[in-house]
């Protein structure tokens, strides 16, 4: 098997129960980036420049350039500012942040400390998905280790820089992966997204300037500081720097997380995941988590795994959750389950999403159960049209896009269901 360069899981051995601990992390160049910054007195501006140069883009789903985001934080601001890590990993298909936190927690902590230094921030929160209690407990222990070793707290490693980090445990709400819902949730409220603007960089946690990044984004920072932004960029391709972890699930022989350089062909990722289960044919693939448009197998086999290539193929890289479906999959049933999810998780704040997700689900449900009507496909498109772009947050889009893509690429299958009252698979 081909060897790929690693920036996130380098030296990580999940079978060794002590591999995640501070001492093991230090033995694999851990906290070297932070020490380099503090000993060489690298300025916050230089760090942000380096991150910009690396073409690191947000790994949570939106793919926004990280360095640019950091530069939005107000400078010379009197008062508290925050950084927040979005570890509320609930996008169906995604399970990379759990492994980063569980098997390499100090990588995230070091990344957050560097980000705090670059943005002049003294406190940060890591919002962890409710269902992964063991990982939350591990993060708590890792933060204690880092504090005891002088990496967190006042005057870090004898410098004048201070930063405290706290873990916040979620309790089961997909919407809290939306950054402003997440802020509301930390404030002890229902996780309902805020209207933007104002953006979090001006009005964030407790109304203070706040930058929110995904776990994997923060975790990408130590390597790029140690080796330079240009080296990081060169691992991937222009505008798509570095490596990324892809979570592969569904009909493959070895589902799991695989770290590969940006721009690696999808066919190689599929091979890493052991190939198709039972040697069957790839029917469809959702390349970036359940909210992203599905792509037919033949288009996917020609695509590369980076933001621009997947966008060109007609979908989005999203969180890098690759859901694989073989030719035994009924696409109507697959869509029915996804439609139910968005219906269940809509926060109820915006009418088009609150009502529309229920309509989408009920219509797909009746098609799946042999009660579909000839006009249903147009009706689904129409409802999706009336949700997408008309809500405060992207959950509405996330509910609408899979519906439209499924009907676009697998229309025959939906029509067959409606006409024959049964599945063609």
């Amino acid at each position, binding site marked *: 098997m081909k060897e790929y360069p690693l920036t996130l899981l380098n030296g990580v051995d999940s079978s060794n129960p002590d591999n995640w601990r501070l001492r093991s992390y230090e033995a694999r160049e851990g906290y070297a980036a932070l020490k380099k910054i503090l000993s060489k007195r690298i300025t916050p501006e230089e760090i942000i420049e380096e991150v910009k140069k690396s073409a690191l883009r947000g790994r949570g789903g939106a793919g926004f350039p990280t360095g640019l985001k950091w530069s939005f934080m107000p400078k010379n601001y009197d008062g508290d500012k925050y950084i927040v890590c979005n570890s509320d990993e*609930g996008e169906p298909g995604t*399970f990379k942040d759990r492994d980063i936190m569980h098997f390499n927690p100090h990588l995230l902590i070091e990344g957050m400390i560097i980000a705090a230094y670059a943005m002049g921030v003294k406190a940060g929160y890591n919002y962890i998905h409710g269902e992964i209690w*063991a990982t939350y407990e591990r993060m708590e222990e890792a933060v204690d280790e880092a504090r005891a070793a002088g990496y967190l707290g006042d005057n870090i490693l004898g410098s004048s820089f201070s930063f405290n980090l706290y873990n916040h445990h979620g309790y*089961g709400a997909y919407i809290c992966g939306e950054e402003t819902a997440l802020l509301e949730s930390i404030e002890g409220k229902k996780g309902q997204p805020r209207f933007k603007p104002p953006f979090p960089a001006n009005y964030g946690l407790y109304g203070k300037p706040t930058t929110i990044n995904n776990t994997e984004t923060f975790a990408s920072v130590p390597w790029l500081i140690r080796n330079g932004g240009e080296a990081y960029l060169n691992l991937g391709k222009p505008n798509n720097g570095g490596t990324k972890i892809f979570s592969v699930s569904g009909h493959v022989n070895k589902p799991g997380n695989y770290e590969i350089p940006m721009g690696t062909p999808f066919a190689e990722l599929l091979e890493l995941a052991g190939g198709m289960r039972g040697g069957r044919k790839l029917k469809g693939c959702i390349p970036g988590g359940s909210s992203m448009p599905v792509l037919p197998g033949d288009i996917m086999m020609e695509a590369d795994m980076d933001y621009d290539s997947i966008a060109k193929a007609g979908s989005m890289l999203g969180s890098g959750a690759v859901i694989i479906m073989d030719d035994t999959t009924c696409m109507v049933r697959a869509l029915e389950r996804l439609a139910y999810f968005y219906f269940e998780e809509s926060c109820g704040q915006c009418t088009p999403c609150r009502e529309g997700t229920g309509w989408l689900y009920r219509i797909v449900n009746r098609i799946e159960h042999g009660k579909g009507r000839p006009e249903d496909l147009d009706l689904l498109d129409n409802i999706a049209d009336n949700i997408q772009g008309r809500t405060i947050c992207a959950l509405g889009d996330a509910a609408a896009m899979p519906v439209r893509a499924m009907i676009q690429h697998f229309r025959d299958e939906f029509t067959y269901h409606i006409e024959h009252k049964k599945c063609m698979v």
Partner: protein
Amino acid sequence: MLSTESLEKIDREIAKYPVEQKQSAVMSALAIAQTEKGWLANETMDFVAEYLGMQPIAVYEVATFYNMYNLEPVGKYKLTVCTNLPCALSGGNEAAAYLKQKLGIGFNQTTSDGQFTLQEGECMGACGDSPVLLVNNTRMCSFMSNEMIDEMLEELRK
């Protein structure tokens, strides 16, 4: 209303936030209360509200919004099975069906001996380990074949 041990845990959570932002600890306070009591009765939520200096309605809002809180009594063990698409492609529905058959209950029901409640869950962020289920919100069980489910039920029944 809550044990000293629970209150100490809640105090540790409160200390994570700015002094004037005690409300930030409400999610963990409710989770800690639920772990002690098994579910969140109104009087438990009222106690949490008073402890954090919140209006009771603000606490009810949180408890009813997040789906891991138990708003009515559940069995000694609450089993939540993920049936979302990635899990459904890899045996999630079959695991749920097997549990229903073994326990003789459907989703959102509790066995007559009060031992088990079964729930359908949404994505737990462990799609590569399907079938996945969660015991009492904290213990995640992966790759749950029928044999593994049998073993787990036997262990919990002891």
